[in-house]
């Protein structure tokens, strides 16, 4: 029990007051193992992440490219369970940084939507990012999030119609996740050409902050996209920092810190 959860919106407000975009960093729980992920995420907090996104490893991750697939598979092979994800949330949220879980839907449905919302709130988690469920099919989650004061981060995509964007932002809480490319994580590079119009269409429907993720990996890109977005979300690049240093935990942590610092400088350069 870590007390009331911090909404992600407070982190966006703080960044905005500083005249910059927020930095959101991702690792899957249980990668390279449960304690290793906790150590990695804490290092990312210390080095400058404003919000932490913890992946719940799943056997069939259709929005993820090979890098995050490999990390999630390693976590599952290592025996990570949903309760380990909650333990990871508790450890990271204790740092005071808003902490959300990124999860495909079936593990939540299996755990019980209401039960998961209650346990996530108890662990100090701020909410969920849900890549494979949209508000028009999420009645149970919307109700559970309301009951437990949790953020509901739904996604908008370059292919979304204006009607669907309006429907999505109306159901969102905390922030809105704009996918920077048509594609999976760790693949194509997000560019201002695609992201700019999507963020403009999204902001036309809501006062919520908009974070851009998928296809963002470097400080330079973070700087470019921070001109349009309220937050920059990075996942595969952090996972790669650990994969590239497999077998050397302290080198992995140094790589995570260095990447965080590069990205944190990027969101301040815009």
């Amino acid at each position, binding site marked *: 029990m870590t007390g009331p959860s911090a909404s992600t919106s407070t982190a966006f407000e703080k960044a905005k007051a500083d005249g910059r975009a927020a930095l959101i960093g991702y690792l899957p729980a249980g990668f390279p193992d449960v304690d290793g992920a906790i150590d990695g995420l804490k290092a990312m907090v210390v080095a400058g992440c404003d919000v932490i996104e913890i992946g719940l490893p799943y056997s069939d991750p259709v*929005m993820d490219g090979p890098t995050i697939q490999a990390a999630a598979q390693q976590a*599952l092979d290592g025996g990570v369970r949903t309760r380990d994800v909650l333990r990871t949330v508790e450890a990271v949220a204790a740092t005071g940084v808003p902490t959300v879980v990124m999860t495909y*839907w079936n593990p939540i449905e*299996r755990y019980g939507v209401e039960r998961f919302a209650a346990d996530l709130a108890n662990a100090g988690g701020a909410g969920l990012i849900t890549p494979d469920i949209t508000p028009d099919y999420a009645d149970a989650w919307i109700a559970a999030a309301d009951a437990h004061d949790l953020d509901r981060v739904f996604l908008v*995509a370059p*292919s*979304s119609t204006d009607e*669907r964007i309006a429907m999505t932002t109306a159901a969102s809480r905390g922030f809105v996740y704009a996918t920077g*490319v048509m594609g999976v994580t760790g693949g194509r590079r997000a560019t201002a050409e695609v992201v700019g119009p999507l963020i403009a269409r999204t902001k036309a429907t809501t006062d919520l902050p908009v974070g851009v993720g998928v296809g963002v990996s470097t400080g330079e890109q973070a700087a470019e996209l921070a001109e349009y977005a309220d937050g920059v979300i990075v996942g595969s690049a952090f996972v790669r920092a650990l994969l590239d240093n497999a077998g050397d935990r302290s080198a992995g942590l140094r790589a995570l810190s260095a990447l965080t610092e590069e990205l944190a400088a990027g969101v301040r350069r815009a």
Partner: protein
Amino acid sequence: MSDPVTNPVTNPVTNPVSFDADDKGWFGGPLEGFGGKYMPEALMKALDELDAAWQEAKADPAFVADFEAILRDYANLPSPLYEAKRLSESVGRRILLKREDLNHTGAHKIRNVLGQALLTKRMGKSRVIAETGAGQHGVASATAAAYFGLDCTVYMGKVDTERQALNVARMQLLGAEVIPVESGSATLKDAINEALRDWVSSVETTAYLFGTAAGPHPFPTLVRDLVRGIGDEARAQSLEQYGALPDAIAACVGGGSNAIGLFTAFLDDADVRIYGFEAGGDGFDTGRHAATITAGDTGVLHGARTYVLQDDDGQTIESHSISAGLDYPGVGPQHSWLAKTGRATYQPVTDAEAMEAFALLSRTEGIIPAIESAHAVAGALRIAPDLPEGSTILVNLSGRGDKDMGTAVEWFGLGQAKPDGTPVGATDAQIAEGAKS
């Protein structure tokens, strides 16, 4: 799923129930039912457009006429309804076979792909992608792409490309690109994941020819509508040829497209019993099977809420079956609903039972069935004694067995010869018993 526990019929039909989906894709509603559309937002517009295009196309007499002409002139349809007299004699009940094994490319799947490819042309897209397990849907998709002049990419688990190298060659000959998938368990479910990843990146120009009546709305109803000709034809043929409806109908169920294709025409015929036979693999008690409805728990897989083989954390469990076409840990949501309402009965059939029926049908009728379809034959033989004398069972013989000869060689020990030319392997008696030598 720790212990296999048979899913009960929790909602028996006492009042008129809709067996069809509502306009959001729910069979039985969002609370208690199955289906829906659990997909990334990036694909929602494309799924909505597909739904709208299909509603429009199926109401367009020109489209319907085009589809019927292609099925007739190109795919060899309608397929015959055939009375299997020697098989009937051996079980004491009349067995009718819907001969989908005689279709172009060798299975019912040609109906689905020709329909979806025709729709793709109508929607102005130039490329199709497909997933495949054994390769049958991949071959059918490559065939339809060749027929319509579309680019075609097929995702196939690496394990399956090795098990079914001949089908890989067929797809390549037909002009398709085959991409082996190495992620996860490197089988059908992972091929679906990879096809969805392609689609997220290519949705503007590309149609996903989904291979079964599963997945997100509108695929379960779209695919069903395209393959329901199986049952529509069989029902009319039964009345015309035998003056009556069958007493029971039977089909194998993996994802469930051939089964829903047969069942749909008979759902409102309350006196016709409906049976689906799932892959029981090594045996239900071993946990190594693909009996999703019998043993699965409600969950979300590949875009639909349905029965899923999964662990306590909702991670998908790998399925097992001698038949690649039934080797899938999910099932089409309409089957889950038909099971829950009690309208259809689903039972597992083991590898050994299916192979026994495979040999029996070959020897009594001169028809080598697909091993998938042999599950339906085995199931029909099992239920036959429970039906009154004089009853008729109509079985969907969904595909032919050419593709399965490698498996049959291994199972029965066929076709080998010693260096001196002396044949070895199974004796006639062993084959007739269906015993694994």
